[in-house]
């Protein structure tokens, strides 16, 4: 079955500029592996080299973060959409250093 996968802007350059790609698979992980096989530039960007979901991305099946489902083993069906977005985080960790000045 063919699943639609929405890519974030930062990854589109690795997929010929496409916003959305499609891939076959019965789980989120299978579909992502197919996409990487088609666009090798995406290798290591979503799934790390140990086969785990990269910690700097969030992957959603429809409206749900797959980390709260069954991760890469989450089953998918034909009308599903996978979305990939970067994890956005940061902050003034050097606070104490700056205060000490």
């Amino acid at each position: 079955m063919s699943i639609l996968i929405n890519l974030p802007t930062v990854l589109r350059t690795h997929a010929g500029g496409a916003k959305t790609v499609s891939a076959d698979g019965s789980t989120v992980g299978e579909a992502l592996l197919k996409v990487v096989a088609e666009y090798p530039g995406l290798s290591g960007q979503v799934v790390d080299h140990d086969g785990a979901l990269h910690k700097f991305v969030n992957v959603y099946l429809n409206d749900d973060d797959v980390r709260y489902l069954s991760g890469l083993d989450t089953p998918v069906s034909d009308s599903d959409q996978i979305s990939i977005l970067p994890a956005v985080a940061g902050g003034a960790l050097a606070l104490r250093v700056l205060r000490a000045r």
Partner: protein
Amino acid sequence: MLTLPRTVHDQMVAHCLMGLPDEACGLLGGLPETGDAVTCYPTRNLAASAKLYTVDPKDHLRADRDCEAAGYSIIGVFHSHTHTEAYPSPTDVAQAPDPGWHYVLVSLRDTQPVVRSYRIIEGTISEEPVRLRSS
């Protein structure tokens, strides 16, 4: 250059002030080609911390969908520094997710909030001008 409608600027600063004592964060929707922001998407800070922020992934997904449906893209992220200047910290640089984004810092250290914007490309920080427009 980042162009902010006055409304987006004010929404962003208000969200940061409302988030005190924690850092607050959000996303900016707009045109990546020109750096024109059109929409402010305040998001929850999942880290709920005065030193760290994590954009709630659900809020991010909602913002991204809204933005794309309107023909725009997420072009940047803003967050507050509650006690330090409006300059990216090493954490901000290490975790900058997209070299095409604008990284907006809102410092609440002084009475008057300070808004500054940066590009972060392969670990290199460069400040860019912020232009305010009336609508």
